């Protein structure tokens, strides 16, 4: 098999997995060109990541919810409400930030379990149950902020999550303008990636399984390494890795591991693929439903924390339409509405695509009305792509 043939075959077989990376790359390249490089400036990329944060974590949770054939419309206002609770906790109850964050995450889990009880135990369609949540949390947010209006959060530690960067080692003369810890982390990422790829490959070969050909393998490893290195370099050129980026990375790593490597993840996809078969195999569909909605609630709380921290305040309308942005991000990232299909990383890329569109079009000074229409087209195109490539593979 020639190199080009292999490339073509790989592209055809993995078009769904690669499609969103290609889309993100094309969008970023276009904006970089259209804004004379402003779009990929360090400062803008850092902003982009911080703007993506509160939608990205919701999109991760939403991915699993959609995988098990449900939906959660309540998470936007739940995030807004829990952000307000965090603000009140620190300003009125005088709880420390280290107590506030676990408390709010715990409340998020409880809210998720309330939803899953309606869905799994009482058999109420998730659309209806979470629409009720959407109304309820909206009211709760307004009640929580009624007395004071916008609640200013004076806590520097809390506000750092959405605005500050990880510390750097003191200046030692080399690379004075560059954030060295970020570069080192990028390097560590590359080393970990390359070594795990090589280990994996040799293990597969020992079992006699044909993987990628050697040139293709080298290209893949070089490409991903260059990507990690490039991102680290761009981030390091401004102020380094933001705390929001750290949160996204942690959520991504943990959820990617759980979905791909653990029994729980396997069961979530089994329930999504065929709930009856999963139940017959001894998998408790109820337990999986509770777990997935609890995780969604916790991530909604995290989203609320990220947003409140970024604005350094809890506002009366925080969280409005977050849920729809998260759902759109998940679908752009390859999640299938039929259930059972979709990855955490895909949804993160989907969130990045949607925020990139907003950010790029803002930089180009495009009217907000057109921005909505462009995003509509991208969402529709992503789903059309998903449907057509699925039929193509069969």
């Amino acid at each position, binding site marked *: 098999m020639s190199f080009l043939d292999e490339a073509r075959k790989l592209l055809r077989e993995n078009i769904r997995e690669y499609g969103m990376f290609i889309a993100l790359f094309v969008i970023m390249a276009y904006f970089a060109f259209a804004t004379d490089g402003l779009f990929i400036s360090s400062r803008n990329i850092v902003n982009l990541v911080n703007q993506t944060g509160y939608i990205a974590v919701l999109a991760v949770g939403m991915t699993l919810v959609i995988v098990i054939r449900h939906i959660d419309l309540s998470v936007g206002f739940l995030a807004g409400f829990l952000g307000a609770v965090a603000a009140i906790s620190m300003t009125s109850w005088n709880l420390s930030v280290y107590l506030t964050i676990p408390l709010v995450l715990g409340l998020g889990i409880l809210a998720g379990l309330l939803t899953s009880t309606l869905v799994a135990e009482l058999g109420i369609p998730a659309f209806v149950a979470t629409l009720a949540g959407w109304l309820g949390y909206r009211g709760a947010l307004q009640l929580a902020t009624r007395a004071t209006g916008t609640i200013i959060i004076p806590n520097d530690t809390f506000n750092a999550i959405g605005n500050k960067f990880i510390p750097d080692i003191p200046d030692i003369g080399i690379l004075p303008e560059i954030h060295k810890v970020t570069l080192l982390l990028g390097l560590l990422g590359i080393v970990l990636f390359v070594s795990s790829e090589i280990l994996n490959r040799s293990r597969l070969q020992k079992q006699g399984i044909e993987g990628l050909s050697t040139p293709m393998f080298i290209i893949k490893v070089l490409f991903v390494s260059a990507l990690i290195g490039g991102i680290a370099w761009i981030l390091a050129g401004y102020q380094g890795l933001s705390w929001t980026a750290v949160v996204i990375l942690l959520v991504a790593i943990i959820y990617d591991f759980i979905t791909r490597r653990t*029994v729980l993840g*396997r*069961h979530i996809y089994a329930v999504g693929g065929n709930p009856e*078969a999963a139940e017959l195999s*001894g998998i408790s569909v109820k337990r999986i439903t509770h777990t997935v909605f609890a995780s969604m609630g916790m991530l909604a709380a995290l989203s609320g924390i990220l947003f409140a921290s970024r604005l350094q305040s809890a506002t009366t309308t925080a969280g409005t339409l977050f849920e729809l942005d998260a759902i759109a991000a998940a679908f752009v990232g390859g999640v299938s509405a039929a259930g059972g299909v979709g990855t955490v990383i895909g949804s993160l890329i989907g969130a990045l695509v949607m925020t990139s569109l907003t950010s790029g079009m803002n930089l180009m000074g495009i009217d907000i009305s057109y921005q909505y229409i462009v995003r509509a087209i991208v969402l529709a195109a992503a789903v059309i792509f998903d449907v057509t490539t699925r039929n193509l593979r*069969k």
Partner: protein
Amino acid sequence: MEQTTERSPVVELQGIKKHFGAVQALRGVDLALHHNEVLGLLGDNAAGKSTLMKVLSGAYIPDGGQILIEGQEVHFANPMDARRKGIEMVYQDYALANNLDVSANVFMGREVVRVKLGPIGVLDYRYMEKETRNLLARLKIDITSVRQKVERLSGGQRQAVAIARATAFDAKVIIMDEPTAALSVAAIDKVIDLVRELKAQGSSIIIISHRLEDIYRVSDRMIVLRQGRKVTDTPVEGELHDFREKVVAYMIGARDDYRDSTAG
């Protein structure tokens, strides 16, 4: 079945009764399956075949009667109970998750764990894939990769995966509900071969089918149900033509070996 008659049957159902509201689905059915035997279960629609097998596989709890496995009485509260006792059911619609690969389906609900971090078990991919490859090879099932998603397999291959899954955990009894119903002729032959292979390797099997020639080709013995009662329990022998005529006679009620012994 020379040597097996001395051991107790692998499964014995005695006087199984089940009703749904006013409808008597099973009116006291006896059934015995011997070791390494293939038993065909026949009957018209609503004769009680599926109900009887759902009782045996733990999906229904009978109103009366006993279930014995190797002479021991057992009670099933759900299908998992039955599976733990070695009763495996292959469902008509395969009961596979099409979005997962072959290996994941074979081990669905019984995943092998490499490390346990609190409640989180880390999957042992290598072991499960190796075992699946061995299993497919042993049953001579033709599937190129255990990492292939089930949605990309043909109907016959899916049925083979469903059957392979049922045999993966040392099942005592494999129940197949209409294993050939949705398949092409070529695929039916492969499933028949697979059933023969399983028998050759020592399995005990019950097959429900509408297709009389499938039962004829693989079964040692057959039971015909009619209106919730057993009307015959006899070895499968003779010409296909005679067999067919005989079965139809039992199915429509023209013949009945047990008419006097049970009252409706």
